[in-house]
């Protein structure tokens, strides 16, 4: 989706404001929002790509006006309603009205440490061999999918060079659609900053991780 979350290259947002001695959380509710989001992901009712898709499909003005954890909570509520875990009435005041739905999993306290330490590898066995090798010239496709994608707008239709092959990884675009975790080859592609921005940049190069379906070969 061509949303406002896809921020690379937008101008006029103002300076970056680093904060000295920044705490992990600024307010008590942010702590709970963070933990609730991770714990509810532990129900297995959606995957990380679907969570990202839910956040970036919030209305653009709302997304830009909201703090980070507010976006998390709004997206969490949206996912829970979509999956039938809660009703919108229940979210108004927190009073239980409907019995709990069945979930696929549950993150209990005794499993938190091991779940965090294990993480969720996205590496998968590839069905086919990799189409590109390090050094290959590639061009990103010009696409504007309505759903979730991880190909930023600023590097669509751009020529670059493969600098690393990471193996096959869960393809975010398909995973967000609920189309499974089939691995697609993942590459780091180096773009000359001038290819992306012309003369109006202070970068030398920008590297973007691109799954194979984002790329076409360029014949020499």
């Amino acid at each position, binding site marked *: 989706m061509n949303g406002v979350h896809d921020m690379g290259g937008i101008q006029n947002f103002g300076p*970056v404001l680093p904060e000295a001695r920044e705490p992990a959380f600024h307010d008590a509710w942010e702590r709970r929002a963070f933990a609730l989001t991770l714990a509810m992901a532990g129900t297995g009712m959606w995957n990380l790509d679907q969570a990202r898709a839910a956040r970036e499909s919030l209305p653009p003005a709302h997304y830009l006006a909201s703090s980070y954890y507010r976006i998390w909570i709004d997206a969490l509520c949206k996912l829970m309603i979509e999956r039938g875990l809660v009703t919108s009435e229940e979210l108004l005041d927190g009073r239980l009205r409907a019995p709990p739905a069945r979930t696929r999993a549950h993150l209990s306290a005794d499993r938190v440490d091991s779940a965090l330490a294990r993480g969720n590898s996205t590496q998968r066995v590839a069905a086919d061999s990799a189409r590109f090798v390090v050094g290959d010239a590639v061009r990103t496709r010009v696409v504007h999918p309505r759903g979730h994608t991880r190909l930023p707008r600023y590097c669509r239709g751009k020529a670059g060079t493969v600098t690393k092959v990471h193996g096959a990884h869960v393809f975010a675009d398909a995973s967000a659609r609920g189309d499974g975790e089939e691995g697609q080859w993942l590459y780091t592609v180096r773009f000359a900053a001038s290819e992306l921005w012309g003369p109006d*940049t202070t970068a030398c190069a920008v590297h973007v991780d691109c799954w194979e379906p984002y790329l076409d070969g360029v014949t020499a």
Partner: protein
Amino acid sequence: MGHDHSSHSHGQRAHTEGHEHGSAGSELTDMDVRVRALESLLVEKGYVDPKALDLLIETYETKIGPHNGARVVAKAWADPHYRQWLLDDATSAIASLGYTGRQGEHMVALENTSQVHHVVVCTLCSCYPWPVLGLPPVWYKSAPYRSRAVIDPRGVLADFGVALPEDVEIRVWDSTAEIRYLVLPERPQGTDGWTEDELASLVTRDSMIGTGLPHAPLTSPDPS
């Protein structure tokens, strides 16, 4: 449930949504009420374990943070074999120090030199190497950083008070997939013979993102 609702200092950054209501206080109270109600509902439904919530918070407030990444960098500075391992297979090299898992499953280390400086960003959301750096700071997740790092990294560095020589190549890394990046900054001059602990005290979080440089020896070390 033993929740800790004591509040940290809000720091200098106002929360954007606070402006909608004219004061940060009223909005924070709204969110506090809303999230408490949500937690009570989800606990009552049996979807979440309140003790698991406490543990998740405790983990990222006390155990997992940039002190982990500083150990990795210090070891790479002190041990050439480890440095090479880190550059060849960062996931394994970092795991050997006990830092693994969520949002660090697939790691790549980027070595800064006198000629090349790396800057890491996630323009699409907030991807960040949790096991080595903890949760991202507000600025990393903010629109100004996400929008500008890929087009004007020198301008961003200036916001951090960092000015690199004109002949240094700046390479930006946009974390668009599940590969997470850790910058290996240049070892400061004047640290010959330093122990890993001493070296780690010079490593800042921002130097591992690429928006800062390590402390020089003799400046006061950053306890974070």
